[in-house]
């Protein structure tokens, strides 16, 4: 069973699917959607089967396939998963079908053909899978950069009013990081050539060479800057609120839910094992960024008047927790951080989707345009509440487990940072409940009082604009209808997953832990959490 190239299939299927969708004639929009949904479901199936084929107790990298790619660069087309990559692939597999379903009407009636949207979505999926399963540094880099293109087009072609600005900002920001990283990637290669005589990009080999600490510090910076831009750490974060706000909801979900995780994934997969000394050297500095980010972004989230910007800022705050967990160098915190990546993907994904559904009804991204929605749309409000509670890491939701692990694991090593970070959970409660109260509670306000839904609201967001345009006439008349069947089908699985992972996270932990332990061993850190 495990000799079937699962990983390759998970890259190839969506890539081919994208080509097929793109090749469909313009008027077959519905077919394009159905194909996209089908393909993404196939990928989900593949991801699940891969997980079954994966042996948590086995060697670190499994289901590996490797063929020579660019011999001249010593680079192979090498794929393989460890627990960390596997859970991320699972996350992708789960999120994409939901995003496809949620974006069903996203591109309808817009100036650009529907099929293009879904083609980019599938291509993005292929790239994202590739980035996580690549075990060759150059291959990883290639996916890392190539991943930008589909997202760039998703934001730029289907985004909100300021989409041009957001798309270019997103692309250039990431590209700068990526290019700086390229210098380090080549640097690692050259170092390996110096040590082994023959340069290589193979992850296993690279982790085994011990690089001179001073060189490490330089190379580390290259990687770190790139990843710190991806998983926005303050102060390199300002692209995310723009992208998150302007991107179509589906794009935003994948952007914050998966794409940005590549940054934190990079920290734990590449920064730590490749540059152990540098990681230890820079750890205090990184932790400062992380903790500042947690509090700073949380406060900023409170100050936002645009729901999508608000959610973006909450994510920046959460990424601070993940970085904290990774750079605490303990098994508990590391496992928690990786688990956090998954749970944050689900929680923020749900939050973005629900906010998107609300915007699709109200046609505005401004919190002030809503109020008392819960009375009109209890299901929507319920989903919103679950998402919000997951985002503030309430026990019973998956986020709690991961946040708890990160904090309790970091505390023994870094008490001060952890205490400061823990204050973040108060702020989290504030920004979530403020938004919830203003939109869902209180007397009917804003769009609920709008008589004529046809005329757009002041400051109506693009996502909303396209979406309201797409709502068939009957739905339009009552502006804030409760969730429809399709929307329930999108929301329900996420809610279920969040709750299940909140009660019984152990299976995922068992997947993740060995990889984390291996990483910490690679860097020779105390993998036992505390040394008593």
């Amino acid at each position: 069973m495990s000799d079937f190239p699962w990983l390759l299939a998970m890259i190839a299927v969506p890539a081919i699917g994208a080509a097929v969708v793109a090749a469909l004639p313009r008027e077959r929009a519905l077919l394009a959607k159905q194909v996209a949904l089908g393909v993404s479901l196939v990928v989900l199936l593949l991801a699940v089967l891969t997980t079954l084929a994966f042996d948590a107790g086995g060697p670190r990298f499994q289901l590996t396939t490797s063929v020579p790619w660019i011999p001249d660069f010593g680079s192979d087309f090498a794929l393989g998963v460890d627990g960390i990559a596997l859970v991320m692939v699972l996350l992708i597999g789960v999120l994409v079908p939901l995003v496809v379903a949620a974006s069903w009407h996203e591109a309808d009636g817009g100036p650009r053909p529907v099929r293009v949207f879904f083609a980019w979505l599938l291509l993005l999926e292929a790239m994202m899978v590739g980035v996580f399963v690549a075990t060759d540094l150059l291959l990883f880099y290639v996916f890392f950069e190539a991943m930008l293109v589909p997202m760039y087009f998703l934001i730029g072609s289907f985004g909100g009013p300021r989409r041009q600005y957001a798309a270019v900002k997103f692309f250039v920001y990431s590209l700068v990081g990526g290019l700086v990283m390229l210098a380090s990637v080549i640097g690692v290669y050259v170092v390996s050539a110096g040590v082994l005589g023959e340069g290589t990009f193979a992850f296993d080999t690279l982790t085994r060479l011990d690089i001179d600490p001073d060189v490490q510090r330089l190379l580390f910076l290259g990687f770190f800057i790139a990843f710190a831009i991806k998983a926005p750490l303050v102060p390199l974060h300002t692209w995310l609120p723009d992208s998150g706000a302007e991107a179509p909801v589906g794009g935003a979900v994948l952007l914050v839910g998966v794409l940005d995780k590549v940054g934190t994934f990079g920290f734990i997969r590449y920064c730590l094992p490749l540059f152990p000394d540098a990681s230890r050297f820079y750890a205090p500095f990184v932790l400062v960024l992380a903790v500042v980010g947690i509090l700073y972004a949380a406060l900023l989230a409170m100050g936002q008047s645009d729901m999508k910007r608000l959610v973006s800022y909450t994510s920046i705050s959460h990424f601070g927790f993940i970085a904290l967990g990774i750079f605490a160098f303990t098994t508990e915190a590391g496992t928690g951080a990786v688990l956090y990546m998954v749970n944050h993907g689900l929680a923020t994904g749900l939050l973005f989707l629900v906010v998107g559904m609300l915007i699709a009804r109200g046609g505005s991204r401004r919190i002030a345009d809503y109020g008392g929605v819960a009375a009109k749309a209890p299901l929507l409000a319920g989903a919103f509440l679950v998402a919000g509670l997951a985002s503030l890491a309430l026990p019973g939701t998956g986020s709690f487990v991961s946040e708890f692990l990160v904090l309790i694991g970091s505390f023994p090593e870094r008490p001060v940072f952890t205490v400061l970070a823990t204050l973040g959970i108060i702020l989290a409660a504030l920004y979530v409940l403020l938004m919830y109260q203003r939109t869902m509670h209180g007397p009917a306000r804003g769009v609920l009082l709008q008589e004529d839904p046809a005329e757009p609201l002041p400051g109506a967001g693009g996502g909303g604009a396209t979406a309201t345009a797409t709502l068939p006439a009957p739905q339009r008349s009552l502006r804030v209808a409760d969730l429809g069947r399709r929307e329930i089908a999108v929301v329900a699985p996420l809610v279920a997953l969040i709750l299940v992972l909140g009660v019984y996270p152990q299976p995922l932990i068992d997947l993740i832990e060995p990889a984390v332990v291996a990483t910490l061993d690679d860097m020779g850190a105390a993998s036992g959490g505390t040394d008593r």
Partner: protein
Amino acid sequence: MIEAPDLSWAALAPLLLVFGAACAGILVEAFVPRSVRHPVQVGLALAGTVGALAATVLLAGTREVTAVGALAVDGAALLLQATIAGLGALSLLLFAERSLDPARSAFVVSAAVPAGSPRDRELATVPRVQTEVYPLATFAIGGMMLFVAANDLLVMFVALEVLSLPLYLLSGMARRRRLLSQEAAVKYFLLGAFASAFFLYGLALVYGAAGSVRLSEVRAAVGTDGGGVLLVLGLALLVVGLLFKASVAPFHTWTPDVYQGAPTAVTAFMAACTKVAAFGAILRLLYVAFGTAEWTWRPLVYAAAIASMVVGAVLGLTQTDLKRMLAYSSVAHAGFLLTGVIGLGAAGTGSGLAATMFYLLAYGITTLGAFAVLTLVRDGDGEASHLSQWAGLGARSPITAAVMTLFLLALAGIPLTAGFTGKFAVFRAAIEQGAWPLAVVALLASAVAAFFYLRVVVLMYFSEPVADGPTVGVPGVPTTLVLAVTAAATLALGIVPGAVLDLAGRAAIFVG
């Protein structure tokens, strides 16, 4: 009594084929009736270049110095000749495009007629085509191929002129916007002559110091200590002449004006082939003649590389004309290529030579393709090269926009395109030689450059179409062929560059 020099005809075959085709072309002009002249000329020119390409392939592996040491036929020379011949052939196809311009050709019927005169206006519409361009271009191609094989400063100088003079003329032969075209020709000519004077003076000084212009003997004279003031001055002036052709800052000033003014097909030809030739010569000069004293010129090249990348990238940001923007991009890429030149170790060891040659190929293909797309988008007065006219092109003709996007992403160096592989190769070479600061600057510069490539993408896809936008012409067979080949190659060199890189690696040899 003079004994005839020994010529290894086989090794010279590529050059002979091209020059033969060129000379034949002149005879055709004289004797073949106008009605069939065009197809004959095109066929002839293509036969010459493609034949040359084939010949280089057959010659692969040859390593000899022939023609009394005037020519070096080695891996590098053959690969670069093949590149030039191939790109030249593609450019000739662009020349031969007849279905885009309503008047069946992008070249003026009679360059002698004053622009704007009644006669000119009447000629502008008649579907007569002018065929001198083919022999001219063929001569230029021959000159370039000679340039990269020259093992002797005199041959290098002659080749330089042989490739330059036709280009001066070609850039003045636009059918539309003739004033710009003529201005471009004048500027290119005067500055080119000025530069070649420098080159020549450098040649003279080197000759004075080394007593010969044979690269091998120059090397002997240079030794490891640089070999005295005269040689160094000579080197300086030679380099100036070559950097001019390679449009490296601060000798790039002609590039934007000429690229913008010249007929787009010619611009494509210059951008793709001249670069290759110029860098071939630079590599040969620096590593065969002055390789033993590289410490003398390394700082200079270092500085020139940075200057080029910065000037190209920064100035490109605010350009509003696509051809001009691509010109600055070519300046920036000259800088990246110099990074690869730095990547050559002492006496040409290291992966720098292979990397640079690969980059030349990748860049040539990509930029040729980009200019080819440019010829498609037209308004009443020829190509619509102003950025604003490209707004919303993605909606109007998705294929064209997609192809252009591919080329732009490649120029920006996004992975899975030829541009990325090339960048990676040259930067690796540079870092291997410890020049990582240069690599970092280069990477930042390419980030800045990416910004203006993206502007075009943004315009094409993310802005709404303009009211009276340009029309996208349906390309004839030649242009279609060019677009297909370049696009395919751009992708192939990005996704599976292994074979070509390997070839470049094996070809990375200088004799002499």
